[in-house]
């Protein structure tokens, strides 16, 4: 197996590391797979990625709307900053 190496500006390296972490794979595998796709002529940002984004965006918009509708119906839309802060503190205490 050949070893390939290259130099990159710090900002680019950080971006690559972050993208690899987002996919949950080592940076070396991320780079190899990305390079292979590019070498094969496959678009890195393909239909699959667009569909995934569309699905996530749609789900999020629906969730936001449902949350706000339920909050308005139950009065939770009037939750005060102090009540929100208290809930956050409770969550942190529960975490230990």
């Amino acid at each position, binding site marked *: 197996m050949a070893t390939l190496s290259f130099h990159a500006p710090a900002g680019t390296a950080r971006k690559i590391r*972050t993208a690899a*972490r987002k996919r949950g794979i080592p940076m070396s595998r991320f780079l190899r797979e990305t390079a292979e796709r590019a070498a094969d002529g496959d678009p890195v940002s393909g239909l699959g990625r667009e569909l995934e984004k569309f699905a996530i965006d749609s789900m*999020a918009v629906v969730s936001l709307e449902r949350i706000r509708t339920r909050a308005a119906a139950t009065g939770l839309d*009037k939750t005060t900053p102090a009540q929100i802060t208290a809930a*956050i503190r409770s969550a942190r205490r529960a975490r230990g």
Partner: protein
Amino acid sequence: MKAVVLDTSVLVAGLLSRQGAASSLVEALFQDRLRIAYTPAILGEYAEVLGRPEFGDAITSHDRIGILMKLRASGILVDPMVVPAAAWPDQDDLPFVAAALAMDHKIIVTLNPRDFAPATAFGIRVLPPGAARRELLP
């Protein structure tokens, strides 16, 4: 498009209400007009707080997943920086400071600016939602 660190308080306020600056900021996140910077610790806290019984009448587990997936997919995962020692009012806020330190534009949006007061000494701008909306959503 700027990325900001969003304190959990702003996320919750913006999800629950259609009114106010926090609401506008959350909508901007969902419309890809604004991005969050996050670390696993921050996303973990979002998940914990959105799952609290106090919000259970509005936020189901299904919707919580939908929200978290969007934040994760559209946000920027950053490597948290080491937080300098200071008189931090609440140690549990430090993951937000650590994320902000990792950003070029160091901005934390919070309902409780006083909790982050020492952060300004380290180049972090701490904005309440109203100021963030004016500055980030022209």
